[in-house]
């Protein structure tokens, strides 16, 4: 069991000039530090493990504890979900968690705070967010405050590069990675354009559907990764549907990163120990050591 890190730093990331990129003790950008996640995993001949949990679930402090647990139990990177009222790409498990967080009053600045606390402990984090909360916060302000908090990039499930000119400029200025998604339905032309705009890693949606644990990882995932590799040297993370070590091992066989969300959120309903157990199993999975299930 681990602590939740320093929760006494009361102020939000907004306007914070001391944390920033110097948290890691270097001047490396978010994009650089994201690259290191995959370089290190590759050096160990394995895939990186990326875990998702929403900020504010079940509480802001609770989510920080859970995300810390995910990192301590073997994840290389966490995706901190920014709760949004209309998550059209999420299934029931994430919807429920996010609704819970919003009902408890979670704010955008709480997500930045969680990122800052994780980064202060040396954790690596990106934010996953639907686009309207960022538009409302201000794209430039959000990029500045996230970079100052020590975040590495942003995954945008409902923003495609076609509408992202302002975000791409802001991300570039702050050294943040704009992480876009490709899907099995993406044409080669779109995969090319999307990978060209992406930094850090490419998010490949394993299947056509919303987030949620599935019994089997769709065959379409490996096909999509192969198609994407024809257009980019970026590391490729595969998400949607991975729920156990065996599946993580399977995905690790063809992808550079294994992304697990809904299964962790389900585990979070049972507390930190359950999250630690699942993360340990997944971490073994991406190392080809899963016990088979």
């Amino acid at each position, binding site marked *: 069991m681990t602590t939740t890190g320093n929760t006494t730093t009361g102020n939000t990331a907004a306007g914070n000039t001391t944390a920033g990129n110097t948290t890691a003790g270097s001047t490396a950008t978010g994009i650089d530090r994201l690259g290191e996640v995959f370089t290190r995993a590759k050096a160990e001949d394995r895939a990186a493990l990326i875990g998702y949990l929403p900020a504010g679930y079940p509480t802001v402090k609770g989510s920080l504890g859970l995300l810390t647990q995910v990192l301590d139990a073997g994840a290389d990177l966490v995706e901190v979900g920014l709760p949004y009222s209309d998550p059209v790409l999420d299934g029931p498990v994430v919807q429920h968690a996010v609704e819970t967080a919003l009902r408890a009053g979670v704010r955008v600045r709480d997500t930045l705070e969680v990122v800052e606390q994780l980064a202060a402990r040396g954790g690596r984090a990106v934010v996953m967010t639907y686009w309207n909360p960022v538009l409302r916060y201000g794209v430039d302000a959000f990029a500045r405050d996230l970079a100052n908090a020590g975040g590495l990039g942003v995954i945008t499930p409902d923003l495609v590069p076609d509408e992202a000119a302002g975000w791409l400029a802001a991300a570039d200025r702050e050294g943040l990675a704009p992480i876009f998604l490709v899907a099995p339905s993406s044409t080669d032309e779109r995969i090319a354009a999307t990978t060209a705009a992406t930094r850090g890693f490419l998010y490949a949606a394993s299947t*056509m559907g919303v987030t949620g644990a599935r019994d089997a990882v769709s065959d379409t995932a490996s096909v999509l990764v192969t198609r994407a590799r024809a257009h980019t040297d970026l590391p490729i993370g595969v998400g949607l549907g991975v729920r156990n070590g065996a599946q993580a091992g399977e995905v690790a066989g063809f992808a550079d990163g294994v992304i697990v969300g809904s299964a962790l959120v389900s585990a979070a309903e049972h507390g930190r120990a359950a999250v630690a157990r699942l993360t340990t199993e997944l971490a073994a999975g991406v190392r080809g050591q899963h016990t088979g299930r």
Partner: protein
Amino acid sequence: MTSASSGLAGTTHEPDETGHFGPYGGRYMPEALIAAVDEVAAEYEKARRDPEFLAELDRLQRDYAGRPSPVTDARRLAEHAGGARVLLKREDLNHTGSHKINNVLGQALLTRRMGKTRVIAETGAGQHGVATATAAALMGLECVVYMGEVDTERQALNVARMRLLGAEVVPVTTGSRTLKDALNEAYRDWVASVGHTHYILGTAAGPHPFPRMVRDFHRVIGLEAREQVLAAYGRLPDAVVACVGGGSNAIGIFHPFLDDEGVRLVGFEAAGDGVETGRHAASITGGSPGALHGAMSYLLQDADGQTLETHSISAGLDYPGVGPEHAFLADSGRATYEPVTDAEAMDAFRLLCRTEGIIPAIESAHAIAGALRLGRELGPDATILVNLSGRGDKDVDTAARWFGVVDPESLPTEAPPGPVDADGAVASGEREL
């Protein structure tokens, strides 16, 4: 008379190549669905130039939906509108009871062209759901309609109609359990089913090409009305008015008048208990720009960009966003948008019933209320064209509660939308019908 397909001919008021009306519109949506909307856009471009498609659309609109719809001179209503001439474009007389059929027949034909066998739709008041279920039955398509649980209760008649027509109605229990949540569920379905399913979006909103395509299917309303008014009165109206939720009936009647500089275009939004109370659905009057459900437009959101819960007595207007072309017209000043409260709308509802023998949809009653207000402002020489977008059969239960015309004990037990006393019972007799 103008045919329905002439609405598809192209205009001088089009979005850019990627669907932007100024800063609004575009595509704020998952990559997984981009291929699908690209396919819809490409197929629509082909279809609107295909004489066979256009002829089939015209045949259906004429022989099946009953177009053209008439224009009625509402003389007794006009006495309450400062003596102005009030002309009603009777979309309530279309098959299925509203303007929604215009768009649905077009998109159902397009579904068939794309070789898809299943359609999904979102619905608020149920008018779009009924129209979609109707077209699906006609063309032999599987049909699933998502409807907020709150709306399945207050529009129970339309739920029954959809089921009779063979559609599956899925009550949505997430979020505010109204129209916006029905849209979320429809998108979630579509991401997983896009290979064989077309999403018949019900309003001129959402990602490109829907705002433009849905508008084109509804332009027939304004094209017909413009011709009818000119033929009967030898002049154009001084103002064209419509209710605005997502804004499909409004954009349909406004659009052919955009170049008629002397014609005022006024949209009436649902103000619920009043915009100042926060319990409303007036996205342009009370909202700010943001991205929701696929497009940039005005929406009702909090300081963090979370969508706000809305309120309107009208299920069809109870939505926190609006189509992007309306946002553009509002900014440019070519159209103006004003709020109408539940109480004003219900007063107009009663007045139209009693003066003209027409029971309007509560959505359309917002437009009637707006026309009364505008008539008193413009005076007896003015001519106001109102889009009477739907009929009110579906709203009889809500209206009966509001006016207390039936014994509340005899009605189903869900929360009454009308005035309630401390015990939650309908305060019957408070309003006189």
